[in-house]
């Protein structure tokens, strides 16, 4: 099993990448290689050119941004390794949902190489970072020959594993708006083995008022459809509610009617069952985290 023949390019700047993308036909960008390399080894993809991003300067960073967003945001470069996100104090403090999710991404060996941008571009519907981006209303930064632009994550997946980026564009990073200190969060997934892609995952965020009533909620289901779905009806239904198991069962039962894929890993009905269970568990966990903090 060997990669097919290709020409190899290892540019040093984003501008050089854009120039190469504009001049080469059938080119593939190589980030951490944890998805593209298997596809090359199995010859599922046959690119004429591989453009390696690993020597491009300035695409690996985790920065705090306090300007445009009410509670600030984290800006993370496309070539930031998943391992660096996992061990970032900034991510753990400001974006604990991402910290919890990334520990369920693959294994140490793959997180050491795998990147944020690679995950967002591969856009596996069950990928944890993709769900986190959906849950946090991330904005994806892309650059092409017409300059830079930002894509709201709600408009980013256009089809199964197909991001809304043009052939001559590359993802340079993403901005993740933070939730206020003390919010509740939980990322819960069901996978057959540790490190596997989730069959279904639930990413949840909640804020509560002093009486314990939900004032804002974000509920995302990964692995269910062609891309992560925001359960907006459930998010609206949660506002004003106290988080307790019986009521959550009623609210989350409505998720069973969402469209689900049917494949070798699980039938659609199984995924729909998980879609009613995992958000409930995640919301309870998120609530307990708020409660735990108020008590201590």
């Amino acid at each position, binding site marked *: *099993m060997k990669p097919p*023949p290709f020409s190899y390019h290892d540019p040093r700047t984003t501008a050089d990448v854009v120039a190469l993308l504009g001049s080469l036909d059938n080119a593939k960008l190589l980030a951490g*290689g944890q998805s593209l390399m298997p596809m090359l*080894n199995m010859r599922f993809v046959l690119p004429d050119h591989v453009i*390696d991003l690993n020597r491009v300067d300035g695409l690996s960073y985790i920065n705090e941004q306090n300007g445009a967003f009410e509670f600030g945001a984290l800006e993370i470069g496309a070539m930031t390794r998943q391992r660096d996100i996992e061990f970032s104090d900034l991510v753990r403090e400001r974006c604990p949902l991402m910290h919890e999710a990334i520990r369920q991404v693959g294994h140490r060996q793959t997180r050491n190489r795998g990147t944020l941008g690679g995950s967002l571009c591969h856009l596996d519907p069950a990928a944890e970072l993709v769900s986190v981006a959906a849950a946090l209303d991330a904005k994806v930064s892309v650059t092409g020959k017409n300059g830079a632009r930002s894509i709201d994550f709600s408009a980013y997946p256009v089809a199964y594993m197909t991001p809304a980026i043009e052939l001559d564009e590359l993802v340079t990073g993403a901005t993740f708006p933070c939730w206020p200190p003390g919010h509740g969060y939980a990322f819960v997934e069901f996978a057959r083995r540790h490190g596997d892609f989730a069959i279904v995952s639930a990413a949840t965020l909640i804020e509560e008022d002093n009486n314990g009533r939900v004032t804002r909620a974000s509920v995302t289901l990964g692995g269910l459809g062609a891309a992560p779905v925001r359960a907006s009806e459930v998010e609206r239904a949660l506002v004003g509610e106290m988080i307790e198991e019986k009521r959550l069962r009623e609210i989350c039962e409505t998720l069973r009617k969402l469209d689900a894929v049917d494949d070798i890993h699980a039938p659609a009905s199984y995924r729909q069952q998980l879609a009613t269970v995992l958000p409930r568990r995640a919301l309870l966990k998120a609530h307990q985290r708020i409660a735990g903090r108020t008590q201590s």
Partner: protein
Amino acid sequence: MSDTRNIAVTVNGTRYEETVPVRVTLADFLRHQLGLTGTHLGCEHGVCGACTILLDGRSARSCLMLAVQADGHDIMTVEGIAPNAGTLHPLQEAFRDNHGLQCGFCTPGILTTLIELLRDNPDPTEQEVRIGISGNLCRCTGYQNIVIAALDAAKRLRSEDGRQTTDDGKRAAPL
């Protein structure tokens, strides 16, 4: 298309300057061009973990890298774990003493993975070891003796303290 590149890599402390076809994986480069056949290839698509090496001190699957990407980097393979030809590393001793392998095919990847794990976390729990080797498939042992060996190795390394610090390659700079 027969693109080639000249690369310079340090493997187990030895510097190599080689010419490689750009599409050759790091795993095949190590095995075929450098003759370091201790790195095993199971699945060649990033599932089994047998080909795990340390790249600048961090574990990585050498089947999921191109050799050309290793240019300028420091690599440690299973051949680099023992301090010399006549002495086993405490991790290897622990595997021998605890029957931590049967056929041995997965062992190189498990040892390199554990070198990183025990360096970062010298006193892991059983659960941490199991999660740490979750990216390595073993079809013989059922993992039990591997976990026992890893925990025993951690104990030996803690008591010997310092013997493992020089042989795990340079550590990548933190972000």
